[in-house]
């Protein structure tokens, strides 16, 4: 007997610390409400969260690892975006 597959959902939790929702795992559920309940029951048992997002895993669009270089390499040379690139005399103080 091959069983029908129950959809997979990705779970994102916003913790108490005021951080953005963060991916923490996945659950199986037939629909969105069940996914939300499952996410609450599975991933917030230790007071981890104040808000939950669930997203159908099939709806996630991922970048292609093969394109890693063209996507992410070009930024490596743009060191002028980083504050340490600029020299400010110490007497000026924190900036």
């Amino acid at each position: 007997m091959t069983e029908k597959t129950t959809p997979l959902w990705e779970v994102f939790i916003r913790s108490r610390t005021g951080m953005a929702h963060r991916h923490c795992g996945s659950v199986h559920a037939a629909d969105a409400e069940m996914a939300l309940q499952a996410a609450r029951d599975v991933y917030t048992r230790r007071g981890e969260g104040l808000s939950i997002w669930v997203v159908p895993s099939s709806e996630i669009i991922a970048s292609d690892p093969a394109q890693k270089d063209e996507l992410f390499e070009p930024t490596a040379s743009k060191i002028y975006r980083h504050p340490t690139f600029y020299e400010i005399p110490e007497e000026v103080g924190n900036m």
Partner: protein
Amino acid sequence: MYTQALNARDTEAGAVEDADRVAAFQARVDAEEKIEPNDWMPEGYRKTLVRQISQHAHSEIVGMLPEGNWISRAPTLKRKAALLAKVQDEGGHGLYLYSAAETLGVSREELTEQLLSGKAKYSSIFNYPTLTWADIGAIGWLVDGAAIMNQIPLCRCSFGPYSRAMIRVCKEESFHQRQGYELLLEMVRSSEEQKEMVQDALNRWWWPSLMMFGPSDTDSQHSAQSMAWKIKRFTNDELRQKFVDATVPQAHYLGLTIPDDKLSFNEATGHWEFGEIDWDEFMRVIAGNGPCNRERLAARKKAHADGAWVREAALAYSRKRADRREAARHAAE
């Protein structure tokens, strides 16, 4: 964690892989980069991971049964809550791990099918019965203790989803071991009769716990490849020794005797030396002939079969609701 049966050799190695890609992959692993599901990986790496992660997941799920056996009989409400929360956690661990395996392209349904058909293995330890309340303490202390030994290095596993799942699991495990040890401590302090129960539990769980680390390195062909892939960080024997060194003093603190007359402390090495593990028993239990193998599988099969109509109903409802929404949209157009 429960990696003991991993050491079967991959015979179906399949097509020859591009040597450059393999080398580039190995270089990434050597540089401690994490491998993610969509990255290219050697087929052997993928297969090894699917097998190890799913086996680990099955162990968590089957592992709910021996301890679950005592939830209804826990002696106090505090212990009942702790045990239920602990067994529930194990279910969570199974869930995290199934999810990690699913990133490699096998579905939960397929994985469940592999367990129920007897095709997939799970840790031999869960085929032993829990006979008294002291067994609950012994499992927390020894079985979760051994699991932690195994799992901590897995937090650094080269495969991202497995490593992240293990980090989550490890955070939850330490309460498991502590509640077990505390429970035993309370028992040995309370009365002589309870102390005897605890000793009896140790006698029965000690050797099976040592077996949890899997065959000795000399008999374990798969170890080297897993080490190179950084799926494994320590050998079976190294982890087992670590476990013995940590556990023997804890047993003594409880006033217990380890059931091993060869046990002795080697001043020179700083390690506890222990007797020979009964590998025949280990192989027998792995092969399906332990005290509870049949019951464990039967219980999982029953839960799965009894729940089939519930899972179908939830799917049917979601289809119906989607259809209704669709119909409503058409009507509105």
